[in-house]
């Protein structure tokens, strides 16, 4: 409890994510352009739009996985491509794929993804998170023996173990049962309440506690 220094310095600047005149085209076709948006701590951005309108492309641009052709994405008012290292420390991305190695156990997978984020999670905390996600006693099971929904839950426990302030979630509710949906909403709500930010897409109607969504409706121009 002595070394709270790191947290204090990181909280000194309130993080913010903003898009300025963001555009995207795929295969010569313009998906969206001139998207402006500012997301502040404690808020979540709900990216909505029909299939093929570029929701996933937008999210991949926010992560830095796809290059930005038009406009800019700013984190703390600095373009993300000029501060990659710092930005990645603040970012946790959950895509369509679960990023779980099937031939490894749940514990090994969680330890590995945490290591990629530059942290070694406390075993007690991992236990607690797994219990919350209904994965108690699954730690030593191989991921390939889990159901789709359980795999998704493992992938989501990664979020709970991550110190990142910005969560980027692409269709996080896929393959989840009702209890899972509630769990995830609670998790995001507590993340937002502690000053985090979240960007998510979903085809289902989503509500995160009593925190209103900041809508971003994408339309093909």
């Amino acid at each position, binding site marked *: 409890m002595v070394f709270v220094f*790191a947290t204090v310095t990181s909280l000194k600047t309130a993080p913010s994510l903003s898009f300025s005149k963001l555009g995207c085209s795929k295969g010569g076709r313009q998906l969206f352009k001139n998207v402006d948006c500012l997301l502040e701590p404690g808020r979540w951005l709900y990216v909505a739009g029909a299939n093929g309108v570029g929701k996933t492309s937008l999210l991949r641009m926010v*992560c*830095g*996985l*796809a*290059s930005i052709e038009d406009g800019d994405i700013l984190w703390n008012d600095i373009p993300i491509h000029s501060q990659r*290292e710092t930005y*990645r*420390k603040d*970012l946790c*991305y959950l*895509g*369509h*794929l*679960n*990023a*779980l*190695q*099937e*031939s*490894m156990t749940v514990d*090994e997978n969680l*330890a*590995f*993804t*945490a*290591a*990629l*984020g*530059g*942290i*070694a*999670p*406390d075993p*007690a*905390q991992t236990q607690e998170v797994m219990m919350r996600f209904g994965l108690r006693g699954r730690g030593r099971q191989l991921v390939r023996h889990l159901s789709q929904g359980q795999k998704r839950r493992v992938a989501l426990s990664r979020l*709970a*173990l991550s*110190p990142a302030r910005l969560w980027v979630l692409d269709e996080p509710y896929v393959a989840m049962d009702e209890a899972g949906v509630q769990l995830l909403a609670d998790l995001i709500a*507590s993340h937002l309440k*502690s000053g985090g930010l979240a960007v998510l897409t979903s085809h289902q109607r989503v509500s995160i506690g009593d925190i209103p969504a900041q809508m971003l409706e994408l339309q093909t121009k």
Partner: protein
Amino acid sequence: MTGASRPIGVANVMLAVFKREVSLGMRQKGEVLTPLVFFVVIASLFPLGVGPESALLLRMAPGVLWVSALLAAMLSLQRMFATDYADGSLEQMALSTTPLALLVLAKALSHFVLAGLPLVLMAPVLGLQFGLDTRALGILMLSLLLGTPTLSLIGSIGAALTLGVRGAGVLLSLLILPLYIPVLIFGAGAVEADAAGLGIGGHLSLMSALLVLSLFFSPMATAAALRISLE
């Protein structure tokens, strides 16, 4: 989330990648054993094909063993990033706080341990088939030990470039085999030079230079290729 998760250094992240790859390799034994068996079979076909004339076999032993090792090491390259690409782990690596090039380096080194090192250890057994003496076997092992890490490192570039491409296996060999030529020349050359009574210092120095160069440049090239594949 207060928790007592503690930050870990770059070296530890690389170690985590290395350990993961090695333990995965140990679990999927077939993937480690296939290149090794391939190496044995190819190297054993030559004496059967060209006949049992010992002088001829002795003469071509270094080249044959090196070419077989090269092909065997290439066999497992395609899988270097394929599963991570398919399950999304590669995206997470690209978003890691540790530079992707360093993670790639750890992966290439684990490929050497799983695919290259077994070849180094198996080579003397096959060398005996060709009638190589103890000294030549030692030099063969040494040249393979210096050369196979380079093969893994250069190979990682090809594996990254052909990621997600149909018919990646053939394309990979077309891309990578020409780049393997220097390693082959100096590797097989070292054994031949010693048999001819010449010094092997030059050959080994050049192989070390190739290793150092590829240690430095290939992870960067691979990381750049992976980012393109991920887009």
